């Protein structure tokens, strides 16, 4: 139960936090079509986050924050709005402050490529709920990845300025990418039991897809070292960036001001 819950929280928090970062783009995209597309991706990820958080709560009710008696908040909201930053289990890639549009599409490419490989495999695992989330999510994330890849290629081959920005975003985000593929003990144990996917097992596929997109974009993967953690701990261990705490301050403010509220 505890391993499964931790695993679902990790995947759910990734989706929740990236959805939040994308929603910050609302009314700021370069064109209306992109405003709509980005909102749509944020909505899909939010939907995935809700299913995963609910699965985590069902797998181990002990992970759900206890609120004052009488609070009508469902488990998904307790998990989203009443945990501290250190209790979240997302990778650090998704929590970074958003930058320009190149930053958006590069992050989305890195995330959705890794996530798609994982969801495909998840669809074949034992837990029927996770398998269903994997199957449905894969369809959605395929679209996200294609959207991101299309823009990465367009920006890389558009103008000098757009190529400069695309490469800068790639340099900035590449060091955070390997953390997505790190083998974490929780995932490894679940994968051995056929109830989860070890991200390390997807590494080859993920790197292959990225190499293909970058080739079309006429870029190469930047020569940068992965970001260190603190004594080996990173996002999945609750060791986050400063950006996450600031993000949660905003995201949780209304829910926390009304722990007994109905919405």
């Amino acid at each position, binding site marked *: 139960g505890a391993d499964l819950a931790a695993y679902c929280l990790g995947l759910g928090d990734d989706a929740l936090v990236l959805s939040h970062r994308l929603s910050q783009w609302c009314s700021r995209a370069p064109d209306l079509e992109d405003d709509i597309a980005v909102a749509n991706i944020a909505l899909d990820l939010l939907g995935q986050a809700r299913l995963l958080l609910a699965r985590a709560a069902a797998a181990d009710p002990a992970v759900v924050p206890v609120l004052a008696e009488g609070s009508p908040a469902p488990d998904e909201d307790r998990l989203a709005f009443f945990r501290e930053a250190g209790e979240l289990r997302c990778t650090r890639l998704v929590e970074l402050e958003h930058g320009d549009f190149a930053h958006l599409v590069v992050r989305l490419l890195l995330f959705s490529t890794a996530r798609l490989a994982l969801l495909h495999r998840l669809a074949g695992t034992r837990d029927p709920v996770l398998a269903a989330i994997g199957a449905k999510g894969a369809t959605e994330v395929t679209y996200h990845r294609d959207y991101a890849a299309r823009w990465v290629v367009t920006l890389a*081959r558009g103008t000098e300025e*757009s190529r400069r920005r695309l490469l800068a975003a790639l340099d900035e985000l590449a060091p955070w990418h390997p953390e997505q593929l790190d083998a974490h003990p929780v995932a490894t144990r679940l994968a051995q039991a056929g109830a989860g996917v070890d991200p390390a097992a997807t590494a080859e596929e993920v790197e292959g897809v990225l190499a293909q997109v970058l080739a079309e974009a006429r870029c190469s993967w930047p020569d940068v070292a992965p970001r260190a953690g603190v004594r080996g701990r990173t996002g999945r261990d609750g060791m986050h960036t400063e950006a996450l705490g600031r993000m949660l301050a905003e995201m949780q403010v209304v829910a926390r001001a009304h722990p007994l509220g109905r*919405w």
Partner: protein
Amino acid sequence: ALLEERFEAVIARHERIEPRDWMPEAYRRTLVRQVAQHAHSEIIGMQPEGAWLTRAPSLRRKAVLLAKVQDEAGHGLYLYSACETLGVSRGELTQMLVDGRQKYSSIFNYPTLSYADVGTIGWLVDGAAICNQVPLCRTSYGPYGRAMIRVCKEESFHQRQGYELLMTMMGGTDEQRAMVQESVDRFWWPALMMFGPPDDASPNTARSLAWGIKRNTNDELRQKFVDMTVPQAERLGVTLPDPDLRWNEERGAHDFGEPDWDELTRVISGAGPCNAERIAHRRRAHEEGAWVRDAASAFARATKEPGRG
């Protein structure tokens, strides 16, 4: 003259003018102004609600709000398309918006200050918009009328969602009920002003009515909105902040107090609580997106030419 006769005949029969039909230049200009203003309102309207996306207090509400703001972008898109059939491009319209040469609904120059505002905007603001827009489904210009049919359908959905949020909050804690009341107090008068100045101060109304662009006067619509809203407020359990509001048996309608027309004038002329911020936000997004739009055009050109790109 023959063309003009045919135009007048179509209008008289309450039928539709289509893009390739002849139309008087003043009719076209009036339409461009109105449709553009409407499109801009959808786009600017994303801001006051979008500001609460990052603070929505439940994941379900966050999803509902995201979908709603996305719908507004969609409305903007097809209203701009309708406007393009009149020969003005989306780029030109956006430029006029950010330069302050075209308007958008005055209501979006008021701030959203609590999560209850998301509900109130749905209930009162979308409600008032629907009162304005339902008659426009029968407007004389075809593409505009058809866009309005789709917009109105989604707006009623938004209005119900907003009302439902307020209803849920009224069933919550005392603090939540106070939030709802405070929000309604703040939005009531600005919502009434959405119908524009009183008829005797609205010089363009007559012509728009004659051309079938508008179907009702400002005051008619305002009255209809008040009559529709009062029972909804009762059901909700909130007080509308107007001591003069009461049922007039004789008129078969509600009497109500006078909005602050001086405030409306100030808001329309640019000195509202949020005018500068709304325009600045839109301008920034537009300017910061320029390099992306340029890249997309450059890439499209390059990949069309064989041997290049």
